[in-house]
């Protein structure tokens, strides 16, 4: 699903129901070539909407991971750096340190953030860097053809686990938000959302917004992992992929807030 799929805002069709015209945030008003039914498009749109609603869409720097996240490189109309695979946590650490007044976001896949970049991702959280990490968890390396990642489900067939993931030799799917919430006391906001249903999408949007608010008020590190569909590599139709998210993926990756903002009512600057 391309993030800019619905760009026709001044429709002349008269409708009886009161449908709010959906405007695409200026930040993402360029074509992105995600596969049909991909969660990436939904997620970047939610982030862009939140930035706009918080009045920060002209005050943001993205560190973009390598993976299907890379497709944001040509799509975003904002300061952005395409970081080496896994290193967005380090790159964003420095960007936020030298530009503390900008909203700094790392946008990464599960492979990028939790496999090759586990050191950088964890260390940024550990140091309580004041930026926000969004991890698009589609339980595989989407960009490179669907190999196994650290979040691949037990038994899940991928191109490097053709017989299904054997967790006795490859480890159990990693739950990073839980790690941060339980080990890094200083972290400001930690949540996991999903794009499986409109209800979950709406909830995910509130998580994204709270994470950004935590950054804006200088409370500390914030991370939201978002369970996302990859119909292409899962070999599923788009609707089936969404069902799969709910039925197979979510049971292992519980949704919700693991760490809420200590001081949510605090004025956002």
């Amino acid at each position: 699903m391309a993030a800019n799929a619905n760009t026709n805002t001044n429709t002349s069709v008269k409708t009886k129901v009161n449908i709010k015209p959906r405007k695409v945030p200026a930040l993402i008003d360029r074509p992105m070539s995600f596969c049909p039914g991909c969660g990436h498009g939904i997620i970047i749109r939610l982030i862009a909407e939140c930035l706009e609603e918080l009045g920060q869409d002209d005050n943001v720097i993205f560190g973009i991971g390598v993976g299907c996240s890379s497709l944001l490189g040509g799509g975003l109309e904002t300061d952005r750096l395409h970081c080496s695979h896994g290193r967005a946590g380090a790159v964003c650490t420095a960007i936020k340190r030298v530009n503390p007044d900008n909203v700094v976001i790392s946008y990464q896949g599960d492979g990028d953030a939790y496999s090759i970049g586990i050191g950088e991702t964890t260390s940024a959280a550990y140091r309580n860097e004041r930026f926000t990490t969004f991890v698009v968890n589609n339980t595989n390396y989407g960009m490179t053809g669907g190999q196994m990642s650290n979040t691949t489900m037990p038994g899940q067939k991928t191109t490097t686990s053709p017989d299904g993931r054997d967790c006795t030799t490859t480890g159990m799917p990693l739950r990073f938000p839980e790690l941060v919430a339980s080990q890094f006391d200083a972290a400001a906001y930690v949540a996991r959302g999903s794009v499986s249903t409109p209800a979950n999408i709406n909830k995910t949007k509130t998580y994204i917004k709270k994470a950004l608010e935590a950054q804006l008020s200088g409370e500390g590190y914030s991370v939201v992992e978002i369970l996302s569909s990859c119909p292409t590599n899962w070999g599923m139709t788009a609707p089936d992929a969404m069902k799969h998210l709910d039925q197979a993926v979510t049971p292992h990756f519980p949704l919700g807030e693991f760490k809420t903002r200590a001081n949510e009512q605090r004025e956002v600057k």
Partner: protein
Amino acid sequence: MSTVKGEMIKGNEAIAEAAIRAGARFYAGYPITPSSEIMEYMSWRLKEVGGAFVQAESEIAGINMIIGSAACGVRSITASSGPGISLKQEGMTTLSDEELPAVVVNVVRYGNGIGTLLSAQCDYHRETRGGGNGDYRCIVLCPASVQEAADLTVEAFDLAEKYRMVSVLMTEGALGQMMEPCVLPEMQAPKRFEWGFDGKYTNKKIGIFDRDSMKEAVALNAKYNKVKETEQRWEAQHIEDADYVFVAYGMPGRATIGAVEQLRAEGHKVGYIRPITAWPFPEKAFEQVNPDVKGYISIEANATGQLVDDIALTVMRQGKKKGSDCSGGSCPAPVYCNPHVYGVPSTKAIMEDYAKVLSGEMKEVY
């Protein structure tokens, strides 16, 4: 820190203080001997001047932090040695790709793999050819004294920004640990380059999949050629009438100067070229050498001889320029090399090398 004129200061600390005075306001890195003093110094000094310092979880993270701060237009520096510099290669090729300026200090230590703590020059090929993927060059500066280390630190930033490249200050363990009097550079106001990120998308940028690599390659090559043409730096003496010309940089370069002076005093027609930029290699220095020179002698602190390759390439090109076809006895002069492995060769050892060249005991490499 008091900076009385010519105060004694350790090489590594001179580099750190010179970077601060050049306006560097970001350091990220991971400790490793013999470079750690730079990081330790930065940890308190950057705080004093309102900069940012991050003790990174690894050299990979450290250099990627440099990418982040450089992208924001901040003068940024990192330092390491041996295997730490190996880990920085990913970031150095990325900096080069993004055309972001930064200074990487390599306080060279001897050895492959984890290496040793011995001072050496074993990273010449890596620094001058680029150790990361792709096809890029870094400007490589090699100081031979604490004073020169401080001066070249400032120059490293200026050159990095002039060409939007990475500058490598390729120093040596011995120089990093050594104390010498040094006049530190003037304090500059910190700079913020207007091309840096400001969150407002002031400087438009395209995505990786929309790039025109062919066009970029042509522009990059033109840039590197311009650097080669304009930025060669070296020190040379007694080369116009020399029978033999020594070539050496850094600490062995300094020892070589001593040997040449002594040999001259004894009546030998020898001279020296001390490259200050290893890349671009100071080819122009060789144009001033006696056309009838009998040979070049490379003095290096590594196991296999690396600088000798650049000397040979330069001598070969110069020979070609002169139209020599090697038929009339005027083919390029032979190039000898004594790689002293590690440490700093003594004046005596270098004079012995020379005697071996004269006696025929040392065979030419090229």
